[in-house]
């Protein structure tokens, strides 16, 4: 965060508490556990996505490239997340107690050194071979899980989400006796219990190697999280090992592996649980969780203030903001010279000084005091969570009056049993009958209540890269309804001059030829500013070149620029006609 913005003179609930929470409180750690074995080093034929210069692909290389890309992307999208890469089955061991396991990158927020190392391994054959020596006796899966678990436990930070990406192409490890299975299962189960989720990526390279999960891993992984007769429920949405993820992945095409990785690396991050009242006066209340699916990515908020210290290292600067006249030493550890008694005394003074600071609202240039209880009361409307006040046809949604990003809600059985079926019934009725709900929502303890429309979205599943993928989740979206206060005065548009039918007709032809199939798909439009920023940052960090060539390459990738040539080809002539028609019509009007 920018030092300037670090603290503001505002009561805690003057910031959007949700956004704050969302930003700070979800840290994720991903540990790649990638197998090194003779079969992982078997050369694969190049796919169309590989360039000629790339070294011969192997399953191991594909896995490492994928991990590298994940790390690169997460540095941008989730700068607080940790990434680690562990190899198992290697000749080299980090710890004699855990033979056959070595960390290529320690589980931590990636740094330049680690990224450079990974890059080097991928670029230089020698470095690659160095790390890719298979052990004569590979470790058991139990030991792999044990070592991985140890890495999670010894990580410096407490991560909300801890995930283990297991990448292997050995469907039947050498140690596969009943005891081995049971031991691996118990270990996996322990990982699961402590909140570590295992995501298997089973690599198949037909025709030589077809991965069969039923040989070993179904035994080990399914039991760890769920009973086989059990159903996938919302509790396990974050922890499930689903049938789909057990499907082996073809290593022949690197895109498949990477898109699969991408699809599975995002766990849901609920922001808050809240009650949703369907029948007023608390007669029918269910539990929902609120998610933020849309939020503007801002680079400037990620800028740091630095100070170049005497040792030539730039360090991040912390800013402290205090009322004029206050002491800044309060939590200064370095001030140890001061005698303990004096210290405690000054702290007391500080305390009494702090307590004299009160809150109020500005009235002209003066402050009208209010106690903090009063401030809280003024903000409350006695609304808790979501309270539905009625329903309207979904067509009445005022799409032209948007004043805030939407929230997403999904039911949870945690606090109210029967929430899912009730939500599902409401969801179905809203979709089938084209209805929306009108409700008040208070999205969080300190947030202000607002009026909203609640719109249901249907689950849409499509085949993407030969894999069924949910491209629209089932659930409901909460869209703020603007208050009277939020509507600005209409601009003084004194010219009301509807066009004549001829001009409109040509305009219609133009626009009908330029329709984008399938609506607006955000994933197609990357933010060119963000992309460029991180390309330059990465180039600086990893000492890669960034010049005209790269600049051009970026411009080519920028899909936000209109396709001028195609537009001209499709409607160029029509546009000229349209301009003519506008001119004629205007001249006609002048003559009248």
């Amino acid at each position, binding site marked *: 965060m920018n030092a300037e913005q670090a603290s503001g003179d505002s009561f805690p609930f003057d910031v959007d508490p949700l956004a704050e929470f969302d930003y700070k409180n979800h840290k994720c750690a991903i540990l790649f556990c990638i197998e090194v074995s003779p079969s992982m080093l078997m050369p694969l034929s190049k796919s169309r996505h590989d360039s000629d210069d790339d070294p011969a692909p192997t399953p191991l290389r594909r896995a490492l490239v994928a991990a590298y890309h994940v790390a690169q992307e997460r540095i941008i999208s989730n700068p607080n997340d940790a990434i680690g890469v562990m190899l198992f089955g290697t000749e080299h061991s980090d710890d004699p107690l855990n033979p056959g396991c070595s960390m290529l990158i320690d589980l931590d927020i990636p740094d330049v050194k680690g990224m450079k190392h990974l890059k080097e391994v991928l670029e230089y054959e020698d470095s690659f071979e160095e790390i890719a020596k298979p052990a004569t006796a590979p470790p058991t899966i139990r030991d792999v899980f044990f070592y991985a678990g140890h890495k999670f436990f010894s990580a410096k930070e407490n991560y909300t989400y801890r995930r283990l990406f297991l990448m292997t192409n050995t469907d039947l490890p050498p140690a596969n006796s009943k005891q081995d299975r049971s031991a691996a299962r118990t270990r996996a189960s322990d990982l699961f219990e402590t909140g570590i989720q295992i995501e298997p990526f089973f690599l198949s390279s037909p025709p030589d190697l077809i991965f069969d999960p039923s040989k070993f891993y179904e035994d080990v992984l399914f039991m760890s*999280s769920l009973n086989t007769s059990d159903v996938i429920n919302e509790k396990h949405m974050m922890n499930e090992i689903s049938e789909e993820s057990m499907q082996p992945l073809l290593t022949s095409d690197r895109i498949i592996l990477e898109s699969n990785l991408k699809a599975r690396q995002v766990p849901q991050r609920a922001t808050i649980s809240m009650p949703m009242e369907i029948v007023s006066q608390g007669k029918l209340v269910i539990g929902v969780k609120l998610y933020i699916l849309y939020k503007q990515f801002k680079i400037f908020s990620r800028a740091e203030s630095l100070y170049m210290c005497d040792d030539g290292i730039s360090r991040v600067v912390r800013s402290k903001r205090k009322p004029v006249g206050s002491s800044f030493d309060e939590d*200064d550890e370095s001030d140890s010279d001061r005698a303990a008694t004096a210290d405690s005394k000054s702290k007391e003074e500080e305390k009494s000084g702090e307590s004299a600071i009160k809150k109020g609202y500005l*009235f002209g240039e003066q402050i009208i005091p209010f106690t903090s209880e009063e401030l809280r009361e003024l903000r409350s409307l006695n609304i808790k969570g979501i309270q*539905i006040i009625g329903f309207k046809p979904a067509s009445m949604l005022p799409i032209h*009056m948007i004043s805030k990003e939407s929230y997403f809600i999904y039911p949870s059985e945690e606090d109210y049993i*029967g929430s899912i079926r009730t939500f599902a019934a409401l969801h179905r009725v809203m979709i089938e009958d084209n209805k929306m709900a009108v409700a008040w929502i208070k999205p969080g303890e300190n947030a202000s209540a607002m009026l909203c429309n609640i719109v249901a979205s249907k689950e849409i599943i499509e085949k993407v890269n030969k894999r069924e993928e949910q491209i629209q989740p089932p659930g409901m979206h909460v869209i703020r309804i603007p208050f009277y206060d939020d*509507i600005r005065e209409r601009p003084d548009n004194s010219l009301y001059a509807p066009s004549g039918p001829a001009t409109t007709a040509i305009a219609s032809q133009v626009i009908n030829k330029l329709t984008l199939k399938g609506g607006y798909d955000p994933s197609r439009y990357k933010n060119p500013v963000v992309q460029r920023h991180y390309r330059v940052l990465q180039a600086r*960090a990893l000492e890669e070149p960034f010049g005209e060539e790269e600049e051009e390459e970026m411009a080519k990738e920028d899909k936000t620029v209109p396709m001028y040539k195609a537009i001209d080809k499709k409607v160029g002539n029509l546009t000229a006609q349209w301009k003519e028609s506008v001119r004629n019509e205007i001249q006609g009007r002048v003559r009248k």
Partner: protein
Amino acid sequence: MSKETTVFVVDLGHAMTKSHMAVANGKSDLEASLPYLWDTIGAKVASGRKTVYMGLVGVGTEETRVDFGDSEGYENISVLYPIQQFLLPDFRNLPNVLVPSREGFGGDIISGIVVALDMTLKFCRKQKFVKNIVLITNCNSIAEFGDSMDIIDQLANEGVIVKILTIGTSQATIAMKSENSEAEEDSPLHFSNYANLEAFANNAVKRGADVNIIPFEEIYLQYGRPEIRKVKSVATYRGSLTLGNLNDNPENTMAIDVERYIYVQAAPIPSSKSYREATSDENKQEEKEKPPPAPLEWDTKYFVTIDSEKTEDDKETTKKETIEVLKGDLQKGYKYGKSIVPFKDDELDSLRYESAQGMEIIGFISMTELKPWTLMSPSSFVIAPKKSPESALALSSLIHAMRGAGLFAIVRLVKKKGDNPRMTILIPYIDVEGNRKFEALVEIDLPFAEDVRNYKFASLDTVKTVKGKILKQHHRLPTDEMVQSMRQFVNAMDISCLADGLPATDDDDGAEEYAAPGAVYNPIKARINQAILRRALDPDTPVPKLPEILLNDAVPPPYVVDTASGLAEHLVEVMNVKKVEKYQSTKRTDYQEGKEELKKKAAQLDLDALLEYQPTSPNGDQPKEEHRSKRRRLNGEGSVRMRFDLEAAIKKWVEAPESDGAGTQERLIEIFESTGESIVSLLEDEKASEQDVIDSVRVLRTLASDMDEKEWYNHYLPKLLDALRMTSRWKGIEQNMSQEDLGKLVL
């Protein structure tokens, strides 16, 4: 912002102490009108704007204080405040100034207007001002209209806006009066005065002056409704809307001059500010004259912590030093993962994205394919510039073509050269019903790929087992009956069109959309503003209640709720939603079954047997001792005894004859929890062996399994594992526990 003056002319004649308004419930006219003055004047003071001026004139005052006091006809008129910027002390003093006169003092209402006009003109001179005069009267003072034409002409010429608020002149009040003989005595004067005022207003309007006469009752009934000054938007984009490449191929490019104005944007709610309260010493000295506090000033300092981690002596790793640095010496930088990449000022340019101003159409999408939840904020109007008929026509053809084809445009917008591009959508907007016909494109931000989080959620229509089996019937899925009941309820609760709170059709008189967008006042904002005003006037007033008028659309309309109540009750019954008690929360067996089972078991519970282990028995000290003794017992061979004890309890529990089991479930949970805690505390016991721990855990696990409360154990396990990891001593035990099959119980 433009400068404005407002002179309030308030009737303070003795008649204002009487009640002339039917709706005021006996409040005197002055009492009833003061809140209006507090709100209106207070809002202006609160704005703190230095260009807002106010003055106050009293009519019918006991004194006479006017600049031309000697001239006839201005007796008993007082300039209470000359035109000035009002500050908090002025505002706070108003209740002392606005007091009615004793009987026998009368002023001329029109003379009051003349005084106000004179003040205004003298103050404004030739400068540009928005000039307002607001008159409040109950028409019981004299009104001498001799030279009213001159006044009217002056009002018209100077563009003064006059609002005359008359108390006791609405139809309802007049009707009440004719029944009430008591009030009749002041009627003749009242009516003739009112008629004169009305005539004055009508003449004024005829001659081009902006004079309005409004029954005060209308305002009185709207009390609590906030007065909102609509923000006038400024253009946030002036440039062209293009389709095609204007630079390379202007001939075949559609280019329309447009301007963009914010249309909807969440208005900020006032935020609190800090101040430093004067210390108690000062407080005593100037108890009464304490000035209102001013906002705190802030000081920002910058610190950097130098971690001398890389000293050669490895033991001194934690040596830290924090130094203060100056703002001017700071450098910008970004994090790349954990590493910091500094950028010098001139290097920051290399990060900048070069962009040219423009609003360029990328293509069009069908309106049916727009997912409204992807829209971000704010909404803006895109219109043609005022003096460009050609652009207006060109834009209109696009608006109508889009409306006709049901298409929205996807656009890349760069507001100014060098600004970051945004993806936005253009939606045609045509309003021909309002007073002023209006066409525009409404523009709203769309998300980029980076702005979207693609979370996955389980289907709501089917339930899938881990092995991929798809279930259509499950307690998590609604039955047909549930869906049907929900459908009836949703239909009954339709609020899309109501007239006076009753369901209506569009054709009915007064039919309105309930809680319509843009029609509801932000109650929190209004309430805060009101609280500020009230407290500004009187520092000791408590926070006022939220006015009912603001809650009109906050609750479901009562009639609709009443009509739907039968359906609602049915819905509640079929859905059978239950709030979760602790420990039942993640039970995944069918809820009904589970509940019945629990009931049965609770009924079988033998209370006496359990009370032996009761850590929180009702009699005083005993529980503590009991608790301690159990811990002691757990040492060494304790686990064996614990097992016997617990097993005995289970046995009794299962075999005991029926008893009243209210609350027993909770007690069982308590026993279970405290036993679990004992095991955790056992870990700290030096004498305890690994086997002891394992045995104790097994007892607990078996207990949970036998009671079919597996969740209890599964809930407990992570806590235990955490405790085990805290010490080095128990390192191996975790592994042994798994070998001993003490993992999570399968539900």
